Each structure stands twice: as C-alpha cells, then as structure tokens.
C-alpha cells in the first residue's frame, strides 16, 4: 500500500521506527496533491519547499533523539483560518489575500511542536460562512466522490483533502456544523470537540461563542490522535477550559457500547430528510442496539428553534468580529489615493474585499444588535440557546449520548443552493444545537445512500467534556461497519 493510503497512526509508527523519513511521507503527499488538485481544489496554498523544510526538521529532531509524539512526521493540512507564520492565512477572503501572520495559532503551534508537517492551507467558505465551500473567494472545492458536488462547508477544503488522500489529517473549525457536515458528505470522520476544549487563539473568528477547532481523519483513531495532540487548556484563550482533555484515544481504542444508553433525537427526521440518509441512519441505530447499546427515543423540542437562533447569534458576533478588517493595519486596501478619508477607504475596502454571504451576515448581525431590535432578536436568540442547553441537559440525564443523521441530505450539486441561502442553511439543521450548547459531537461514516451512492454520516452527541463518548460510539460503528463492508467506506469512492 502506498504511503498516501496509510493511516496517520501507521505513518507515525513508520517514521518513528525509521522505516520511512518524514521527508518521504511529505513528498508522497505533495505528489498526490500535484496530481489531483486540478480536479479537487482543496488547497489555497501549497509551498513544497516550506513543507519539505518542516519535514527535514522533524527528521533532524528524531535523529537527535528528541522524543516526539505518535504523529511526528505525519503531514497535515490546515483550514486557512488558523494563522501560520510560514504560510499565508486568508480565511478564504479577498480582504486577506496574501496576508502573512506574524504568529502561529495555538492549534498550529502545538501540532508543529508535535512534529506534524504542514502540507498547506485548505479552502473554505469565506470566513467559514457557508456549508458548501462555494463562498470561497478562490473558487469552490469539489467532492472527491463526485466532482460536480460540494465537499460540505465551511471546512470543505479540509474534508476534500483527506477524502482525496492528499492529506491523512486536517484541521477544521465547527461553528454550526462546519466540520461534521463536510465529514459526513465526504465519507470521513470529523469531530467538533467541547467548546473551550480546543484553543481559538489564532483562529480567525467567525462567531466567538460557537467557533470550535477540531480534527478530520479517515478513521476514528486518527481523529482521536489529532484531537489529543492539539487540545487542552490555553492561557491565551480566556474561554479555554482548564480541565484534563477527555481520554479520546483510549475511547477510540475501546469502542465498546455494551450497556451504553443511546438516545435517538425525535425531532431530527421526517420531512426534508433524504430517504437514503434516514435508511442508513436507522440501520446504524439497529447495529448499535445489536452491539449491546440500549436505544430509546428522546425528545428535544427546542432543537427545532436552533436554526433561527443560530442565524441571529452567529451573524451578530460576526458583524463585530469582522469589523477589524478595515484596511488600516493589514490586508486589502482600496481607494487610498490621497484624496479619501480613512472612513471612505474602510468602506471601499470592505465593499470590495468581502463576498456576498459575508456581507449578508454582517448586515443581518448589525441589524440584530441594533438599538431597539436587540431584545427581540439577539436577546431572544440567547434565550433559545438556554432552552437548547436545558434540552441537552435533560436528555443526558436519560442517556449517555444522542444520535441523529449528521445532515438531512447527501452532498448536493455545486450551484444547486448557491442562490438560496435558506436551503443552504438547512444543511446544518442537525449540527447547530450542539454549537449553541457547547457540547461535543462527531460525524462518522455509516454507509452510502441508495438513491445517489453518496456517503451518509452518523452524528453522535455527548455532554460537555464527554468527547470520549463520541469516539467510543464512533469506533464501535466504524469497526462493525468496516467488517461488514470489508474495508473503509472511502475505499468505495471512485478513483481520482
């Protein structure tokens, strides 16, 4: 088996054992990137020399006897919202075209220290606003399963890169489903950790109270290894939780669901859900039951109001977070011809630098926070948020985890929902409640929909700091289904 088809854990072991060098592993992936990028467009930035330089440094550290972690020498692709000192960081926006940050995000710094080699920066919906990666200012990324379809979003470059074997691991951020939904529609594993479990320092903010960095991988164990490598308290992020990282690697290894209480969320299903998605979901629930889990139906009535609450809270925070892109200190500057005021240059720059979806959300958020509307919109949305957290709390008194389809449908064709924001927003129907409550959830492949042969994801939701439960259930599902399929779901994808 070629290097690019190996798991991250295998690659780490090979490098640790001296069987291959980090440079060889990096080169194999760079070759793959060169071969398939013209079709996939997962990356915004690839810099062969920088990557090989990092790989050489890892080999040198190992040769010097440095004790590196299990992922040292393993390549990774970072969503282009994490700052990197040696590569540009654009957030998929023209307003940051060519911007080179002077500091590393905590996530990138920790992974660099753990010896992971950065292959490049991946495409995304501009400022992580979208569910298809079509909102990138640098063109859409394509789904390796069907190049005419979306790879999900906003972390679509990261999901596509892993699904296309361009990288064994990637990072993403999940604000309303931006890791889980792309993972589901590309047939890979994607995890949204507990809010505050992974540091936001150096993550270009979309919605501060929701943004959560998390891992993508082709299997549950690799995701857990990556999760563990970048997680943990960070003094630079005030909202970071000062508690031990849940033992996710142990849980991924364990994968035992016997006696586990699993709740099926009653509200997620029915109208608007693709039949093939529901079929795979129900089969998987039965599978879990057959593995010894106790399955019950649980009602979370407030989840149906999550979507509108999210589309008030997230744009409100975004309208303020994106105010800093004003042409004064960095990034694009338009109209500075010596005749215009600073205010005019700010306005011209923002008009030219932000795409339509970003503008839509800034306007929405500005309106929702305005004097006289605050209570009716932002204030009301915060109350809904409290109700959702209470629904989760009540549910987790009855069960250990909740399950649902990750998304109502499989990957939709590029362009299909581009002009219909509401249809696009529905892609995150099942993932948003977790963001609003701040708890943990994972998406793991559970089969292909009958009608289109495209991947379906199972979402497993756990309480705050119960991230290990997500991995435990996901590992059980993966083990049982791969036994049935005779390999990973991704091995059924058409070759690129």
């Amino acid at each position: 088996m070629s290097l690019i088809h190996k798991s991250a854990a295998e690659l780490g072991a090979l490098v640790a054992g001296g069987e291959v060098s980090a440079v060889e592993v990096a080169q194999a992936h760079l070759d793959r990137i060169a071969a398939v990028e013209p079709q996939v467009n997962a990356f915004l930035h690839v810099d062969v020399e920088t990557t090989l330089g990092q790989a050489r440094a890892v080999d040198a550290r190992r040769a010097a006897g440095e004790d590196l972690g299990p992922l040292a020498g393993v390549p990774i692709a970072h969503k282009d919202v994490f700052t990197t000192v040696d590569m540009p960081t654009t957030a998929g926006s023209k307003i940051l075209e060519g911007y080179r940050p002077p500091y590393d995000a905590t996530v990138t710094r920790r992974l660099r220290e753990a010896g992971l080699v950065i292959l490049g920066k991946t495409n995304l919906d501009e400022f992580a606003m979208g569910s298809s990666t079509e909102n990138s200012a640098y063109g859409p990324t394509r789904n390796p399963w069907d190049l005419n379809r979306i790879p999900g979003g906003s972390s679509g470059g990261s999901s596509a890169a892993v699904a296309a074997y361009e990288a064994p691991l990637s990072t993403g951020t999940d604000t309303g489903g931006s890791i889980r939904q792309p993972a589901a529609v590309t047939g890979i594993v994607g995890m949204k950790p507990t809010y505050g479990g992974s540091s936001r320092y150096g993550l270009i903010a979309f919605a501060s109270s929701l943004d959560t960095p998390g891992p993508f991988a082709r299997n549950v164990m690799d995701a857990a290894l990556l999760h563990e490598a970048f997680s943990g308290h960070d003094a630079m992020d005030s909202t970071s939780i000062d508690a031990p990282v849940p033992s996710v690697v142990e849980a991924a290894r364990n994968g035992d669901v016997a006696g586990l209480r699993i709740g099926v969320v009653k509200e997620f299903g029915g109208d608007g859900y693709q039949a093939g998605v529901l079929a795979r979901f129900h089969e998987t629930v039965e599978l879990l039951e057959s593995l010894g889990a106790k399955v019950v139906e649980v009602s979370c009535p407030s989840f149906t109001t999550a979507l509108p609450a999210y589309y008030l809270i997230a744009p409100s925070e975004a309208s303020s977070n994106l105010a800093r892109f004003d042409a004064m200190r960095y990034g694009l500057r338009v109209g500075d011809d010596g005749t215009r005021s600073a205010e005019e240059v700010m306005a011209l720059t923002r008009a030219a630098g932000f795409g339509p979806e970003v503008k839509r959300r800034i306007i929405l958020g500005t309106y929702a926070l305005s004097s006289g509307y605050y209570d009716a919109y932002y204030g009301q949305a915060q109350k809904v948020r409290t109700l959702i957290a209470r629904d989760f709390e009540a549910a987790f008194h009855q069960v250990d985890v909740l399950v649902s389809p990750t998304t109502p449908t499989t990957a939709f064709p590029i362009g299909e929902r581009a002009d219909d924001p509401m249809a696009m927003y529905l892609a995150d129907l099942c993932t948003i409640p977790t963001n609003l409550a701040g708890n943990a959830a994972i998406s793991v492949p559970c089969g292909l929909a009958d009608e289109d042969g495209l991947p379906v994801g199972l979402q497993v939701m756990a309480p705050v700091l119960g991230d290990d439960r997500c991995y435990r259930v996901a590992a059980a599902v993966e083990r049982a289904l791969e036994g049935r399929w005779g390999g990973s779901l991704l091995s059924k994808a058409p070759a690129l």
Partner: protein
Amino acid sequence: MSTETLMPYDEALERFEPVLGLETHVELGTASKMFCGCPTTFGAPPNTHVCPVCLALPGALPTANAAAIESTIRIGLALNCSIAEWCRFARKNYFYPDMPKNYQISQYDEPLCSDGYLDVEVDGKTVRIEIERVHLEEDTGKSTHVGGATGRIHGADYSIVDYNRAGIPLVEIVTKPIPGTDRLAPEVARAYGTELREVMRGLGVSDVRMEEGSMRFDVNVSLMPRGSSEWGTRTETKNVNSLRSVERSVRGEIERQAAILAGGGRIFQETRHFHENTGTTTSGRSKEEAQDYRYFPEPDLVPIAPDTAWVASLKAALPELPSARRKRLQQEWGVSDLDMAAMHNADAIGLVEATVAAGAPPADARKWWMGELARRANEAGVPLSELLITPDQIARVCAMVAGGALNDKLARQVLEGVLNGEGSPDEVVAARGLQIVNDEGELTAIIDQVLADNAAAADKVRSGKIAAVGALVGGVMKASRGKADAGRARELLLEKLGVSE
C-alpha cells in the same frame, strides 16, 4: 471657533439652576495592558508597545488583566460602591482608525461597581456626590491629525496613529446627576475632581497625571429655570484635562447655555470641546446623529465573578481615604478648618505631611509650603509638587532655624538656592556663606559702627524710648547682610546703651 454670546455668570445663576454630571476616565497603573502582556509605560517610541492582541491581528484574543480588575474593585470600594457578584465585559462597536478592533471592550449594563458616593468639601460644606457606576474598559490608540485648521480628523491632510495606548486599562467613573450645587457648581466639579484624584493616589492604582492624560473628565451640564424641577437638555464637554479646566468648563457652559435659553433658543444634546485659551466650548458631534454602539456581551471573555470573601479582604485592606486622613492630620497638626482647606486646595497636605515626617514641626512645615514656596510656585506657574525641593530639604532648613544656625531671612535665601539647583540646604549655606553671625566680636564691631552712624536713634533709646531700638537692630541686620542673630543684636545694643527693659 465660538462666536456665541455668554451671559454673565451672576445673571445666569439668578435665572437658572445648573445640574452637573461627571464622567472620569482613569488609566490604571498596571504593568501590562488590559487584555495582553504589552507594557504600559508612557512615552515609548510610537507603536513599540504592541502585539497581535492590541493590534487586533486576525485570530488574536483578549485575556483579562487580573490586577486591573482588582484595582477597579478597590476603586469601587473606596467610593462606597456595591461590587457585582457576576458581571461581563461588553463590546462597544464603532469604527475609528485608532481603535484596532473597531470595537472597544468595555462594560455596559453590568458594571463591576455601582451605587456609591464620594463626599467633597466646598466652602466649608460637605457635598455628597452620588456615584452611578465604576467600570473597566480599554483605552484606544492615539491619533494625531496633521494639517487642517482644527487638529481634528475632518479637514486633516493625513493622520497617524500610535497604538501604544491601545488596550491600556481604563476605569470609567460616572456620577449620578448632581443637582443643588447652585452657584458653587464649578467649584463642586473641581472639588470632586481633586478628591477623586486623591482617592486614586491613596489607592496607588494610577499615577493620575492629568497632563499625560491618565486622568480626564467629561463634564455634563444642563440648566433649568429657577423654580423649575424639570432638568434641561445636557451637553457633554469631552476630555477636559485639568482640574482648573473642569471648573472653567462648567462656568463657561453655564454662561453659554444661559444666554441661549434666555434668548428663547434650545440646547442640543451634543458633545463639546473645551478650549484652554478661552475657557469656552465649541460644538463637537451631535448626539442625535451619534452612532448606535450595538453593545453585546463580549464572547471572547468569561464573566467576572469576584469571590465575596476576596472582596471583603480587599475592603479591609483599603488604605486610609483622603478625607479621613485630612481629618486626622488636622487634629494632629492643630490647624484651623480654613488653614486645612487652604492646604488642601494648594495640594500641599501630602508635602506638609512628608515634611513633618522628616522631622519638621507642623507649624513650620505649613508656614514654608504655604508661604514662601507657594509664592514661588505661583510665580513659576507650577504646582507645589513640581518645585525642585523635597520635604526632607524643607525639614533640614527648619532644623537649622530651630538650632539657631539660620534665621527666617537666611532660610529664605537657602530655599532660593535649593530651588535654583545650587544643591542641598547645607551646600547652599556653605556656598553662599549664610551662617548667622554668632561671633560676638564681629557683632560688637557692627553694633559699634551702627551706633556711631545713628547717634540720634541711640539717644532716643538712652532717653527711654526703647521702641527706637528696632531701627538700630534693623541697621545691624542690614550691615551684616542678614546674617546677624537679631535677638542677640538687640540684647547687645540695649546693654551698650545702658538700658534695660
């Protein structure tokens, strides 16, 4: 510039009653900024005390400075406020080039401290100023607008921004409306500012250097016709940077508003700028066209929840507050209300206290600071504290006078020498040869000469008009260039003339 008419103050006060309100910004003296680790020292080269956080680079996040929160709580406690058990920062959103994030992290409807008061003394009366709130926020960068007539952004050729100040912790102290000050409104405003500054100094939370902008006032004034109980529309004069200007801005605004109201006009709610040179204000931006700040809770920071036991321990450890200290010192020094008030107004209490601590008798310490030194400070146009002389040096001069080595006249010369930078009191005495003449031989020779030169006066004394000896003593002092001990000279003169008292 203003061409508005003013109504003379006395007339304005006959017709209208003022209502005041003061917002004070105090830069805290913490070692690092409010939300990052950058230093806060004043005067560094532009844009050297900056980092990804205070420059608002993409991805950077704030973390709250615990020392600043502690200082704010101590200020709240000193101002008799309630301390919130749980509160949040909020974002105040508006675009301006000197504010890197284009929002300011401040507090909105959940201030750290609320509902307190500060007693100030004006004209022998105690006036209680109610405090609405004390909250914590961050300062902006400093813009300099180059070119154009006004020094403001509109009309400038270009502007430059120094972000060293961006993110320095700033405490905002807001009073409730202050009615009932009547014609003392300007003095009350100034007394409040003075007292507040002393509270800050006593707490050691800020250097409160007004000339460096580390303490600045926004002054709200409205007028209502005599006999009315309905408050008028207020104006807000921004960034008033000295205590004297606080007083003048209130007075000027009363005179301006009175003229408008008396002429049938109306006052617009607006911000105004104070002009040091004229003592008047001009219109800034109108509040009616002001921005909607779209406050919402800051999601990047966790709520502040001060432990009640910790707050109680901070309260117990508060230093003696200025008003209590003044009462104690007044008793210790045995001075009148009037003298104490004079020292307070001259900002001399701390100097006198330090001089007493260095060994000087209180009466002497007070005499020098409020007399000779106050005169010199006044001449030089500087506050007492900026004179180039220390309380220790004053105490040394007092000791020399008490020991008979100097008399008052010589002591003044010593002080002059010290102020001129000629060295310590002992060095000045040595360099200028300012010893009292204690050599009886030299003194006797001078006395003989004075008696010879003033025979008429000598005869008067001999004939029993002892009072005439004063002229002779004066002659001795003059001839000795002040170095003689006047008491001893008088004794010797009377002895020589064969007269006893």
